[in-house]
Structures are given as structure tokens and as C-alpha cells.
């Protein structure tokens, strides 16, 4: 029989959208002096969700000044234990409002509710809980007896995990006594503005957190502002380079979490069913909009013929569609521009002779959609093996020996993540030791935890987020 799952939509009624949103500066929502607005769309159906004020230079001046005042007068001098209590309070409010935030995130970003509900939001709350506990224990973090906050942190985050990236940035900054001016991504500002409400609800002192929506120009002006002491950026390697250049010669501290082209190495002795799951979640989790995605499958030749049919059979079962349907595995591509980029680079693979496969899957007519795609016959020289696609496109390469696997995995300017699948412990450790990547998932993939440092080697950026290591980025 055919067992169709009836639509199981998560209710939108938990979300109340305003028609337009202002900037959040010095504890208040205030109109932008720029007078400009952007429109945030639901990428699943291209409907307009809200108008959002765009911060200009004068707004940034005001926010940085507010953050400076708050840092010097209130947040910096405050005992760590009290700072921590604010973070605990925020964590609790996030938990209380998690369904609303999950739905809002799915609407603004296009990712499935299953992920916002089960991954993003629990991790957001966990990040605040984890860092709350650090606030009064910084002297024990191995960073000297009396580590000091840097001051005002300018933070620019991407659209792939809007609220989670906000948590990764704001929680450690606040725990360490810094204040922040954060710019959410142009296409996904809404949960950051909901977070601003949470700051108000938590009675967080004005100016400690400032949220300035905008596009690239807002981000550039913010990170180049002479009043900031720290710049933290997550996004593309291209923009990361520009930022690194712009802070050169200043005393600003910089952490960058950039692109990747992660290799997922499957050895012949792998637990194949779990490896298939890991390869699938490695590239199709969050529509492949993941900097640490396992976008290159490196499979040992002796098991390739066994793995690939299993993989395709599994991919054919992925459910693509309405992000708010609880059974959706793959949601919408975040924007028209990103969809165009995925198409362009995937097409280039075909033009270069790569074989392209997607399961039969019906895509909605409105919105931005891209079917899960597997590219085989890929070699190291192909663009699809070298450039970050940032979409649901897996490039499959093969190898013969462990050394060849490692050589191919490392043969990229990036170095963010890698996966290893083997049932042999010594081979796993041998491989993990040689992979030039900041995170190595063995017999698992795309796992995150606030206690686990995350960040890249080489052109995937520098600095770590999470864990004891992540505190270093915000302390002098």
C-alpha cells in the first residue's frame, strides 16, 4: 500500500508579525535615521512578512555609543554573577517562547520546522545557559587571573541559522562583560528583532544589546566603526577577507567563521546504514546552507557501488516542501540570489561532464526550491568539488587508500569540517589527526553543542566559538 502522510502544518498562530520593525538601540525600538526599509520575504512562497528598518551610519554611531556607555557604566562593572543571571533569564524566556521563535524562523528562513524546533531553538537556549554559567568564573578559564572584556563587539551574522548564530555571538560576548551591536542578515532579520523583545522582557540594561538590521553596507560601516573593539563575523570567505583587511592596523580583535567544503570520508568498513544517514544529514540538513556541510562525499572505491544506491534510495525518501509541515525534511532555499548561485554552480558541474541525479520530487510552484542533488563522476578539478555551493548538492568522489582520502580531503583552501566513517578506532584516529579541519565528526555529522568549540583552519576563518576556547575571543 501507499502510506501518504497527510499534511501536518505547524500553526502560524503563535507568531504575531508587525507590519514593520524598527531598529533596537539602547533598549528601545527606534526608527532608523536612514529612513530606509528592507522587506523580509517568506522564501517558501515569496510573500512579504514585514518591513524592517535599515541602519545607516548615524544609527550605527548611536548604537555604538549606547553600547559603549552600557559597557563602561553598567555591564562591565556589574559582578559576573549578576551578568550570568541575566543570561539565565534570557535562556528561560527563549525556552518559553521557543515554539513561536521556531515558527518565525521557519517562515523567515525557509528551513523546516522540524529543524528549528528540534535543533535551532534547543541549541539557542543551551548557548545562553552554558555561557551564563561562565560569567562569574572567567578567572578559571585559563586565560589569566583577571581577564578583561574587550569593550564593544560588532557582530555580523548570516542567514542560515539566524537565531542560533545570534546566540553564538551574543551569549559569549555578554558573559565576558562586552556589549554588542549585532547586524542580522538582510534576508532573515525577524528572529533577531524578536530577540530584542526578549532582551526587554528580561530587563537587560539598555545598550547592552543593540540590533541593527541592514545589508552589506550596514555591516561594513559597523565593522569599520572606530568605536568598536571587537569584530565577530560569520559568513562568506569573500566578505571575511574584506573585514580582515579593514581591521588591519587597528587594535580591533577579530574572529571569522567563514566558508567550507567539508569532506565526508566513508571507509569500506563503515557502518553503512548510519554512514548513509550521516552523509544525508551532512549535506541536506538545512538545505545544505551550512558552512560545515559535508559537501564532498569521499567514498572508498571498494564500497562505492554498495553505498551509492543506498544513498540514492535514502535521498528519494526525503520530503521536500512546506517548511511549516512537521514532516518536511528539506525546506526552501533562503533567497532568489542563493537559488541562482546554486543553479549556476551545479549547472557548471554538468557542463564539466559531471553526472547529475535528483530523485523524483515535486517542488512547489511559488518560492525558491532546489531538489536534493547528487553529482557523481566528480574529480578534484571540478568547480563543484572546490567551491562552496551552500545548497543541497552533494559531490561524490572516490579514493583507494586512507592516505589518498586524507590528501583529497585536505586539498582545499578551506578547513572547517570533515567526517570519517569507519568501525576501526585506530583508523578513525589516524584520519582525524591528519584532517586539517576545525571540527571532525567521526561516525556522526553536523552535531553542535555550546560546550564544543567550533571554527576553522585555513581560509575557513580563525578563532573558535563555543566552549572554554570561545571565551578567548572576547577577553583581553
Amino acid at each position: 500500500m501507499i502510506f501518504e502522510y497527510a499534511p501536518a502544518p505547524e500553526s502560524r498562530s503563535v507568531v504575531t508579525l508587525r507590519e514593520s520593525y524598527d531598529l533596537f538601540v539602547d533598549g528601545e525600538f527606534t526608527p532608523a535615521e536612514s529612513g530606509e526599509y528592507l522587506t523580509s520575504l517568506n522564501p517558501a512562497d515569496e510573500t512579504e512578512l514585514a518591513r524592517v528598518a535599515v541602519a545607516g551610519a548615524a544609527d550605527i554611531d548611536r548604537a555604538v555609543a549606547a553600547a559603549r556607555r552600557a559597557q563602561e557604566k553598567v555591564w562591565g562593572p556589574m559582578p559576573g554573577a549578576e551578568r550570568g543571571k541575566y543570561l539565565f533569564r534570557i535562556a528561560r524566556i527563549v525556552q518559553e517562547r521557543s515554539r513561536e521563535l521556531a515558527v518565525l524562523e521557519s517562515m523567515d528562513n525557509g528551513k523546516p520546522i522540524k529543524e528549528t524546533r528540534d535543533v535551532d531553538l534547543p541549541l539557542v537556549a543551551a548557548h545562553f545557559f552554558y555561557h551564563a554559567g561562565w560569567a562569574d568564573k572567567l578567572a578559571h578559564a585559563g586565560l589569566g587571573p583577571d581577564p578583561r572584556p574587550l569593550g564593544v563587539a560588532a557582530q555580523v551574522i548570516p542567514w542560515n541559522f539566524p537565531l542560533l548564530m545570534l546566540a553564538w555571538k551574543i551569549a559569549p560576548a555578554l558573559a565576558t562583560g562586552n556589549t554588542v551591536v549585532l547586524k542580522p542578515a538582510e534576508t532573515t532579520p525577524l528572529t533577531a528583532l524578536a530577540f530584542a523583545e526578549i532582551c526587554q522582557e528580561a530587563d537587560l540594561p539598555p545598550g547592552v544589546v543593540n540590533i541593527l538590521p541592514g545589508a552589506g553596507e550596514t555591516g561594513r560601516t559597523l565593522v569599520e566603526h572606530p568605536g568598536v573593539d571587537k569584530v565577530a563575523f560569520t559568513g562568506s570567505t569573500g566578505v571575511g577577507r574584506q573585514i580582515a583587511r579593514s581591521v588591519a592596523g587597528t587594535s580591533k580583535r577579530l574572529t571569522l567563521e567563514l566558508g567550507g567544503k567539508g569532506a565526508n570520508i566513508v571507509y569500506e568498513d563503515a557502518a553503512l546504514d548510519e554512514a548513509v544517514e550521516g552523509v544525508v544529514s551532512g549535506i541536506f540538513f538545512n538545505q545544505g546552507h551550512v558552512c560545515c556541510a559535508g559537501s564532498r562525499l569521499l567514498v572508498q572505491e571498494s564500497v562505492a557501488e554498495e553505498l551509492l544506491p543506498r544513498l540514492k534510495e535514502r535521498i528519494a525518501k526525503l520530503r521536500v516542501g512546506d517548511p511549516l509541515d512537521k514532516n518536511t525534511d528539506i525546506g526552501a532555499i533562503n533567497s532568489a540570489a542563493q537559488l541562482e548561485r546554486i543553479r549556476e554552480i551545479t549547472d557548471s558541474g554538468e557542463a564539466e561532464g559531471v553526472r547529475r541525479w535528483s530523485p523524483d520530487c515535486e517542488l512547489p510552484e511559488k518560492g525558491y526550491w532546489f531538489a536534493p542533488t547528487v553529482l557523481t563522476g566528480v574529480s578534484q578539478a571540478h568547480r563543484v568539488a572546490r567551491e562552496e555551493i551552500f545548497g543541497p548538492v552533494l559531490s561524490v568522489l572516490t579514493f583507494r587508500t586512507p592516505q589518498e582520502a586524507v590528501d583529497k580531503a585536505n586539498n582545499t583552501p578551506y578547513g572547517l569540517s570533515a567526517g570519517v566513517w569507519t568501525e576501526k578506532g585506530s583508523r578513525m584516529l589516524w584520519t582525524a589527526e591528519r584532517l586539517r579541519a576545525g571540527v571532525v565528526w567521526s561516525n556522526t555529522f553536523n552535531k553542535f553543542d555550546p560546550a564544543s568549540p567550533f571554527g576553522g583552519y585555513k581560509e575557513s576563518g580563525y578563532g573558535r566559538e563555543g566552549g572554554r576556547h570561545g571565551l578567548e575571543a572576547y577577553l583581553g
Partner: protein
Amino acid sequence: MAERRGGKGSGKNAAKAAKHEAKASDKGAAGTREAAPAARLAVRKTYKLYLGGAFPRSESGRSYPVTSAGGEHLANASLASRKDARDAVSAARKAFGGWSSRTAYNRGQILYRIAEVMEGRRDQFAAGLGRATGAGPDEADRLVSAAIDRWVYYAGWTDKVAQVLGGANPVSGPYHNTSTPEPTGVVAVLAPQNAPLLGLTSVLAPVIATGNTAVVVASERAPLPAVDLAEVLATSDVPGGVVNVLTGRVPELGPHLASHADVDALDLTGAGDAATEFEQAAAETLTRVVRPGPDADAGEDAWLDPDPGTARMTPFLETKTVWHPIGM
């Protein structure tokens, strides 16, 4: 500063230098114009580059005269070129795999061996330092001791740093999760300009203690202690290519090292006014950068702290976090 192409070191200045060299161990830094009493002609030392474990001249054939703190000619040093810098990076890259995969214990043994060999040549280093910086014999001796002790200090760090900086992360799930520091790779070190031995040692030792390989641009004005040190490294079981020493001009070599895509990290201590320009160039390949500290231009005394801690190691370490499920 003058520059020579294919110079043989002949001429008046060189003759003075030879006399100076012959007397140096007796009289310290101060040069002397007295005629040497012995009939024997001193054997002069040629100061060359140190690349991949060998001591070549600059491929450009160029050299430049090096003078003492007092302005007397000491020797001609090789004037390294862009291509020498490129060769040095290649040598450092080639050596990285082997050096970084040695056990930390073995690296510690080798760093301690450097200290042992230096100790045996401490008079030579003291004399050289005296000539280079004008330090008196006692001060030079003290600085040499500090430099030797610096190698001992970092020899002891090699197998501690992973425990101090790494560890287990208590993640919320059935996973074994550990973070370990790993060397960044090839580090270009623009050594302090006014601290040619202790300062140099203080920036170089932490780089290689942690398993990185280094391309060092020695103090431009006082490069000779760096070449002396290279000779120690060459006889201390340090594999060729782990440290590569270039003598020459920061404005000429710096841009190529800063923008070189195969340089993973850049220590700008000796960059002087060019630090910002180099940092901008390094941004192109996201090269890790250590900006000049407040004492970057200070003399050897600024580097005397016997316990500099981990501050000069952490910038050249990457944190790798490995997850693995825990199950039956």
C-alpha cells in the same frame, strides 16, 4: 645601507672586520685597530641563509654589509630575495608534515638539545651579541643565558600545551568530544629588529615548540646572531626546513611572505611601519596575524621575562574538535 652583488667581502672594511673577528673573543664588542700580534690569518666566517637545512647564499647573489652597534663593519650578510623567501616557504611546508607529526616528547628533546648546543657556544653568542647590540660582556652573557633558558622553557612546553589548552568537552549527548591544539602550519616570523638573539629566540621557539615550521626574517640591522643560531639548529637534530632563516630587508621580503598563500601565520613583531600593509596583504588568504606588541621595537631587555606563558604559542595553534559516538 649598501648592497653588493656577488661580493667577495674584500676591501678595507672587510679587512677591519677580519681583525675584529680575530680579537672578538678577547675584547668583546669593542673593535680594535691594533695590529694582530700573531702571524696567522684568521679564518673568516661567511654568513649565509639557512634554507631547508642547508646554508646557501642568496639565489640573487646579493649581500649587504652588516655593522656593529658602533658602526664598524662586521661581515657581509646574504641579502635574501623574493625567490629565497619562496624557497624558504617551500622548505618549511615540506618539513611541516614530519615535524608536526613527531611526538611532543621528541620535539621537547630536540629543543632541549638546541639549548645544550648553544650552551657549548655561549662565548661565541655573547661576543656576537656584544658586537650586534653594544652590550657589555656581562650583559651579553646574561642575555645569552636567558636565550638558552628560553629554549629549555619551551622544550618543557611541547608536551604540556595540549593538556593545558585542550581537553574533553561535556556535550549534551552520547558523544566523546575532545579539543586538541594543533600547529597552524608555516609561520613567517619577522623577528624583532632590536633584539637579535633573545628576542629572536623568544618569537621563534614557541613557533616550533608547537610543531609549526618557521621562515624567519632576522633583524635587518643585526642579522648575524640569527645565522649563528641557525648553525646551532643545524647541529641540534632539528630537521632541515623546520626553521629557515632569511637575512635581508623587511620591506623587500615582508610583502611576499605576507601575501604568500602557503604561509599560514605571520608574526609582525619586526615589521615596523609596514605592519598594517602586511596585515592587509595577509587578509587575502586569511593568514593568522600577530600584530607587533608594545615592546616590538624595544631591545633585548624587553624579552627577559622568564615565564612568557602560552601567549606566543596560542596564536599559532588551531583547535581541532573531534566527535565520536559512544555506544556498544
